[in-house]
């Protein structure tokens, strides 16, 4: 394939993604002959690290898989283990887990929109450069991000690797005065979230429609966070325990993240897939806002992901206010756990999509085997498929620099968390 007249470009590191990956592109006779999202973030082997640990060690351990979405890891884990042990967390815990999860969505989505994605849409190298010309846009994002972090810290002491979650509940219930002080700040931020949604909808986004399958959780009454069935835009509707029968992970030579496929086909998880499948579950205020933007969901334009992310920030603020307005201090912030042997499943909505855990536990409550499927390994094949279509429709005759930037933009739009999946984007274009 590599002829002497091939043109190769190496970009050593893709910027503004979480983790390290490389993009390899081979162009032959004006067509893409091969495209690979190469991920060589070194594996940290969490599934092995968990073996032999007591069940109560799991939340602090799995948090370390991702600094940006530790709550997601903790939530999928505690739901899996409590389900297996037959523990009923009750209404207080159910509400408070949704509230802390809202904090992670606000934080993670704000970080992505402003620090990682927005420079692409406005033509800057970084949010710091963007802040010199558009200080209010960046500052609004940083304020929302900080608010999300503070909501996590209310329940966990800190936003990165919070220490509050345990199997069975929380180690400590927040003090009512701290909750009401935060609720006031959440309420005060609603106009900022509204302005953010309008701003994302006003961005000059590329308008390419693509065919893809959306996959997300769906709950009978709520916008999904901690619970639901796994559904798809192609009619799939299964319980979370059946995930591994329908979605299969396989290794590809160019990646330390396993690729996950649905019936052998790529699919999308994350904010756009969630809004596509659950817009009827958004609270009325968020739905009204959505209608005002003029963006129609379900959308086949991948760039509407940024609008979906902003809508989810608005949802998360609204939902956290609803849940915390009724706050009361429980008798205990956790339920007692009696371990038993068996297999437990957990699937919750990480900011980047479905995060699926499976634990096999022995009678003493020790982990025998763990399996974790993060959102980014599910999106990897979809990103490659998107890159192929997006770059061909963008025009392969364009300069390497243009192709590189567009390729990076496509990838960043998915908010890949490569540390989760396993980190490096260097783009190589071979022209033959």
């Amino acid at each position, binding site marked *: 394939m590599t002829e002497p007249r091939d043109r190769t470009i190496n970009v050593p590191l893709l910027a503004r993604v979480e983790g390290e990956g490389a993009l390899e592109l081979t162009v032959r006779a004006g067509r893409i002959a091969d495209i690979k999202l190469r991920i060589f973030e070194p594996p940290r082997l969490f599934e*092995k*690290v968990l073996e032999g640990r007591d069940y109560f060690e799991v939340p602090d351990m799995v948090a370390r898989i*991702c600094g940006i979405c530790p709550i997601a890891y903790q939530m999928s884990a505690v739901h899996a283990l409590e389900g297996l042990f037959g523990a009923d967390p009750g209404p207080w815990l159910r509400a408070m887990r949704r509230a802390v999860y809202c904090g992670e969505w606000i934080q993670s989505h704000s970080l992505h929109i402003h620090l990682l994605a927005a420079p692409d849409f406005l033509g800057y190298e970084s949010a710091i450069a963007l802040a010199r010309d558009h200080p209010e846009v960046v500052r609004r994002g940083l304020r929302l991000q900080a608010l999300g972090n503070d909501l996590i810290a209310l329940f966990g*002491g800190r936003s*990165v690797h919070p*220490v509050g979650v345990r199997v069975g509940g929380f180690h400590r219930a927040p003090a009512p005065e701290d909750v009401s002080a935060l609720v006031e700040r959440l309420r005060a931020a609603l106009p900022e979230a509204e302005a953010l949604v309008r701003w994302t909808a006003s961005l000059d986004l590329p308008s390419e429609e693509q065919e893809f399958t959306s996959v997300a959780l769906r709950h009978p009454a709520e916008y999904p966070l901690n619970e639901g069935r796994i559904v798809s835009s192609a009619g799939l509707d299964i319980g979370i325990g059946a995930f591994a029968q329908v979605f299969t992970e396989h290794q590809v030579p160019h990646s330390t993240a396993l690729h996950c496929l649905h019936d052998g086909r790529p699919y999308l998880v994350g904010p756009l897939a969630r809004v596509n499948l659950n817009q009827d579950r958004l609270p009325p205020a968020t739905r009204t806002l959505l209608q005002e933007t003029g963006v129609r969901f379900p959308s086949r334009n991948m760039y509407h992901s940024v609008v979906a992310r902003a809508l989810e920030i608005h949802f998360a603020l609204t939902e956290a206010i609803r849940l915390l307005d009724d706050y009361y201090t429980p008798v205990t912030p956790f339920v007692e756990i009696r371990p038993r042997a068996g297999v437990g499943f957990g699937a919750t909505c990480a900011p980047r999509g479905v995060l699926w855990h499976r634990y096999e536990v022995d009678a003493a409550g020790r982990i025998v085997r763990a399996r974790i499927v993060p959102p980014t390994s599910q999106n990897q094949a979809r990103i490659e498929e998107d890159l192929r279509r997006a770059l061909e429709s963008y025009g392969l005759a364009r300069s390497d620099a243009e192709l590189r930037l567009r390729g990076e933009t496509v990838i960043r739009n998915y908010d890949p968390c490569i*540390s989760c999946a396993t980190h490096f984007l260097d783009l190589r274009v071979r022209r033959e």
Partner: protein
Amino acid sequence: MNAKPKIAVHKFASCDGCQLAFLNLGEELLALAELVEIMHFAEAGPVNLDAQVDIAFIEGSVSTPDDLVRIQKIRANTRFLITIGACATSGGVQALRNLADGREWIASVYAQPEYIESLATSTSIASHVKVDLELWGCPVSGRQVLAAVRALLFGVAPVEERDKVCMECKRTQAVCVLVAKGVPCLGPVTRTGCGALCPRFGRDCYGCYGPAENPNTEALGLRFAGLGLLPEQIARRFLFIDNAAPVFAEAGARWRSAADD
């Protein structure tokens, strides 16, 4: 140091959580960007792997053949090298593979282990190059990182916290969870810096800031045994986030061999 020092933030094997000590600074991130020139910080945007800088911050542990080469280059290109977090400072939670058969672990997760370029071990930055300052914590906080930058900007040696979490509990008047609840708290041997977060949440410290100065792991292990923990459970208390920090590694090995007897 010059009027506008140059900094770089590099990532090795990690969860990206310590880089968030910068990215979560909010307004202060914009202020920092005025005080220093950010030459390389891929997650924030600027990419220049080979830039000459005054301070290089390193997140993550050395775990691939490429890492071995990269860390030498970074050291050669910086005046000060600061590790941020447990992975860079002690090898991180992923150093647990050093105690097992790392190759076999990779083979059990990946169907085709020959495609995985990974060393059998995960090691701290200091096991490969000279480190000027180690910031412990899983994760480090923005306060720690800014304090280090400020000290270096003023040309003074950064203050290193080596006290125990226990001391922090006393200062903040947190109730001792080891005494009051009988939970196996690592506070008596763990370095402070977190503000005694776990005890203030009514739970046991799990040692994420690494060993404090003069830690008595032997006495604490015996105390845990008195609480009813089995030797293997005591070993796992030490063999957690900072399992490869020598003090914790030795304590873990002692209790693990007691478990095997």
